[in-house]
């Protein structure tokens, strides 16, 4: 009798696991099913490499948005990468227990601030700064990169920190024993050893930046052209979906799904690259 009960429980749990699987794949399936038809109807090339987005008039080109998404992501890495890595180095190599206790919660707090708050502060403070000191309207690639850079700091710092901490103490001790200074040890020994983990952190940061929506539509200006200077406004793939979703019908809506498919593919690739890097580090 207990055996029957056990089997029954196992069955229920399996149903739960299958349901989870079902929901997990529901999203993928739905986005793909809705996104694919337009690729077939209008042509993959015309969408991914098309320059004109005018969905109510039949143009579904999202190339400028793909480029812009990558540009802000790259910009975010330029802003957040070095700063984040340096912070991680500080945390793992230089700081004492007290600093760690102060910084870790601070990072969690930074990570917990909603993106709309970042976007809002960006509009109130960063956009006017860019407009008054650099030119343009302020709603620009550079403003977006700055805000996104700050937003991905916690991700980069914590993953790089984990990577650096997992470098065996012996590596450092060996280097110092041979007469290297601390800094030389860090940059010639520790960082290279943690390379794949740090890369993973950067890639995950990229994934976060490219998937960010709310802060971006508040700061980027949402213009449809590929920006020719860092002061130009731009529109990302995420912004495209968010701005027009509520209004779109018919083919226009399908176009947004196609945008979603492209976005998903890019992020999936980034995620797998990152996970691969993290696993590689763990195996070492």
């Amino acid at each position, binding site marked *: 009798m207990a055996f029957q009960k056990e089997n029954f429980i196992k069955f229920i749990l399996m149903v739960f696991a299958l349901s989870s699987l079902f929901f997990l794949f529901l999203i993928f399936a739905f986005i793909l099913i809705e996104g694919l038809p337009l690729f077939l109807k209008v042509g993959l090339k015309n969408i991914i490499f098309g320059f004109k987005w005018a969905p109510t008039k039949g143009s579904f080109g999202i190339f400028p948005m793909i480029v812009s998404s990558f540009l802000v992501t790259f910009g975010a890495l330029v802003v957040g990468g070095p700063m984040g890595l340096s912070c991680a180095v500080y945390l793992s190599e230089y700081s004492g227990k007290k600093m760690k206790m102060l910084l870790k919660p601070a990072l969690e707090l930074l990570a917990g601030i909603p993106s709309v708050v970042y976007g809002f502060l960006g509009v109130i403070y960063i956009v006017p700064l860019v407009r008054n000191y650099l030119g*343009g*309207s302020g709603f620009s690639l550079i403003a977006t990169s700055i805000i996104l850079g700050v937003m991905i700091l916690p991700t980069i710092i914590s993953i790089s920190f984990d990577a650096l901490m997992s470098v065996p103490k012996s590596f450092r001790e060996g280097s110092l024993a041979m007469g290297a200074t601390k800094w030389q040890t860090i940059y010639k020994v520790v960082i290279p050893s943690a390379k794949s983990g740090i890369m993973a952190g950067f890639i995950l940061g990229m994934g976060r930046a490219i998937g960010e929506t709310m802060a971006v539509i508040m700061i980027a200006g949402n*213009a449809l052209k590929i920006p020719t200077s860092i002061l130009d*406004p731009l529109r990302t793939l995420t912004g495209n979906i968010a*701005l027009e979703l*509520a209004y779109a019908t018919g083919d226009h809506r399908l176009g947004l799904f196609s945008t979603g498919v492209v976005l998903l593919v890019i992020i999936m690739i980034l995620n797998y690259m990152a996970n691969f890097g993290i696993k590689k580090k763990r195996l070492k």
Partner: protein
Amino acid sequence: MNQMTEKLYILFLFIGIFTVSCGRETSDRKDNQSPITIAGSTSVMPFTEKLAEYFMLDNPDYVIDVQGGGSTAGVQACINRTVDIGMSSRRLKDDEKSLRDITICNDGIAIVVHPGNPLNNLTIDQIRGIFNGRIKNWKELGWIDRKIDAVSREEGSGTRGSFEDLIMNKMEIDDGIMVQDSNGSVKEVVATDPYAMGYISLGLVDERVRGLSVDGVAPTTENIKDGSYKIERPFLFLINGTPDENTQSFIDFVLSKEGQIILKKEGLIDIL
């Protein structure tokens, strides 16, 4: 089961009871209290919300639920009967004609600039040129040497549709122009950027932005009423079939003298 699990179960129990009682509340409500759902144009929304506030003050058992989503979404929701009233800031297209549209008021579209901008008037041709990308710098209009930060609405917006029909006249809005997804956010950009220009609902113009005269005609409600300022569009309530009693009461209120006065105070053009 240990203490912690017990506490969790009690918490879940409370949540379950709360959820069930929520459902109960709806069915307990009197007929009068089932909410009137209204959704659609973000341009019309703030004014409908105002009307709803007044209406509910006088009729406390009514509940009116107003949402945005855009003119097109409002039309769709109305067709699908997911809302009682749809709001639109553009005229219905041919394939949407199954719905009944009621004009509750008219609204002008104002071309706005920052209050510090010295310009007062532009020709339609100039406005077209700016949004088309032909005119890029304020110095071409007689002001300083600075790029014009033009802002438009997104594709699918009723306001943009009306702007394109009434001003752009088949010319396309340039790709390099910024886009914001609501009247309020366009206004915010223009109010904070001294070199910006955009188009918003006339009803939203206040001391934070300035409406330009077009071809010599100032954007005022009087000029719209007498037809000299031609850039205007109707605000529509959309109904699918015959509205129920509650919905009809609200519509009657909006079209009544009381409702129209409220709209007029907000800067819209009443239809009395």
